[in-house]
């Protein structure tokens, strides 16, 4: 007490702020930074040494899995952005009876964990699913694609749509309607207004929402786990290396690299968009 009493008010304030941040910093250092560093070291400590970090490119299976995951995530991001931008813009620009309920339903799946998303895909495209029942009634043969990369694609789009719609709506609500009116009064067609006024104004929001969708699709695990352990995406490869092969060094190295990719995607989007971005699930 005597020490702080002698300090001038400003440094006392700084000291106090540092003390308030200290418990979080300690927890974070002990349970996140240190373990990640340990993961990195263990990755390099296996039979292959530090070369293990190159196997993501040189090992045929790892490279295939990386490429499949990148393509899947890019596809999910593109489709989700397109669908959510149309729906989100529509919901912001029009009011009609049932509007609030529609928004609530579109954002309800936001809190679903990956396993539940997987189950939703099974409900739609699984052996006893809706799509199977409809196709059987129409064509006589059952269409089942839940337990494959297509099912995973559907699941990640399902997972990402609510998040992206919310981001698009929040950004579109801040758009100045006057800009749009000005463009229209100058004779711009609706499509030109969308292409030249609205989309450029939404770009930061679309970038950050797209980065979240991409990073989540890269790193998510629950949906693939529910659908089929044979789906060749990076998180499943890591899981298999760790549990079935007991190849801890490889699993550690691959998960470190995966973390690096998702973190870089989000950091890059944030530096372009300037808002805080986060993945979940």
């Amino acid at each position, binding site marked *: 007490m005597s020490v702080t009493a002698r300090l001038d008010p400003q440094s006392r304030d700084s000291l106090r702020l540092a003390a*308030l941040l200290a418990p979080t910093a300690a927890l974070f250092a002990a349970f996140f930074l240190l*373990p990640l560093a*340990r993961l990195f070291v263990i990755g390099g400590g296996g039979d292959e040494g530090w070369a293990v970090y190159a196997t993501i490119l040189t090992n045929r299976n790892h490279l295939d899995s990386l490429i499949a995951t990148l393509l899947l995530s890019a596809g999910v991001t593109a489709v989700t952005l397109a669908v959510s931008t149309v729906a989100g813009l529509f919901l912001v620009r029009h009011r009609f009876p049932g509007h609030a309920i529609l928004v609530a339903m579109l954002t*309800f799946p936001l809190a679903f964990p990956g396993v*539940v998303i997987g189950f939703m*895909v099974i409900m739609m495209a699984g052996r006893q699913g809706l799509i199977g029942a409809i196709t059987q009634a129409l064509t006589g043969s059952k269409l089942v694609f839940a337990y494959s990369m297509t099912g995973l694609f559907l699941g990640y789009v399902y997972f990402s749509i609510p998040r992206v719609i919310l981001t698009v709506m929040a950004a579109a609500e801040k758009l100045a309607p006057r800009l749009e009116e000005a463009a229209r009064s100058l004779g711009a067609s609706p499509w030109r207004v969308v292409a030249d006024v609205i989309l450029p104004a939404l770009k930061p929001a679309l970038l950050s929402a797209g980065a979240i969708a991409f990073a989540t699709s890269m*790193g998510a695990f629950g949906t693939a786990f529910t659908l089929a352990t044979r789906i060749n995406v990076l998180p499943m490869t890591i899981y298999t290396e760790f549990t079935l092969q007991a190849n801890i060094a490889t699993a550690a190295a691959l998960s470190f690299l995966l973390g690096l990719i998702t973190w870089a995607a989000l950091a890059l989007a944030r530096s372009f968009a300037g808002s805080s971005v986060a993945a979940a699930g």
Partner: protein
Amino acid sequence: MTTMTLSRRGLSFWAQLVFTLLVCALLMAPVAMSMLAGVTANYFVGIKSGLTLRWVEEVWRLYADTIFLSLRIAFACLGCTLLLGVPAAYALARRQGAVARAVEELLMMPVAVPGLATALALIVTYGGVGDLRRSWLFILIGHVLFTLPFMVRAVLAVMTSIDLKTLEEGAASLGAGFARRFFSVVLPNCRSGILAGSLMVLTLSVGEFNLTWLLHTPMTKTLPVGLADSYASLRIEIGSAYTLVFFIMIVPSLILLQWLARHDRSAP
């Protein structure tokens, strides 16, 4: 010509409405189907086999402990994130420099890095320390790491939107010490952020799977772990009934969150 104005609802309006309704149907159809399947006597036969609570009872018999463990972890996680996150958010709100931004960026990392990687990192570092691996506290550590950023961000957003400095200076000029200012001026002014953060933390913790799957042991199964288990090995009605229980658990906090968001937007 079709326009997108409010007054004239042309072809474009209807096309977009149909599209949006289709997206909504895509999202809601499986939810409705699984809720229904959870109370249908025989899903293969269909709804005509009758409605029953038998499957929900079965879920309760098999998985009640996972529900209680998930609730225990979620509320412990909420306590931790409140104690850690609110003071941290205050410190970050008061300091706007490059160091504070870097710290904020670092704190968000557990959300950016996949749960699978974080869980592996925790296992290789602390898996051999005492009985930690077998304790529910191991899962709690993972959940606190993952949810803390959401608490910090929700509180920080409110703190930076109100004029914290003027409020505090006013209180200080009346002779209030730091503790008094913090508890009677700062916290009450941030309650919407604290509430939103708390609801996020509870919802995310109850549903967390990516980290938990690797951190759990047969003695520490949480609700999502039980869900994965039931999807893989039990009949579709039980998986559905279990999912129904999960929906019922998260719906109240989701409704509150949406209400909060609307309330914030309508406030000046």
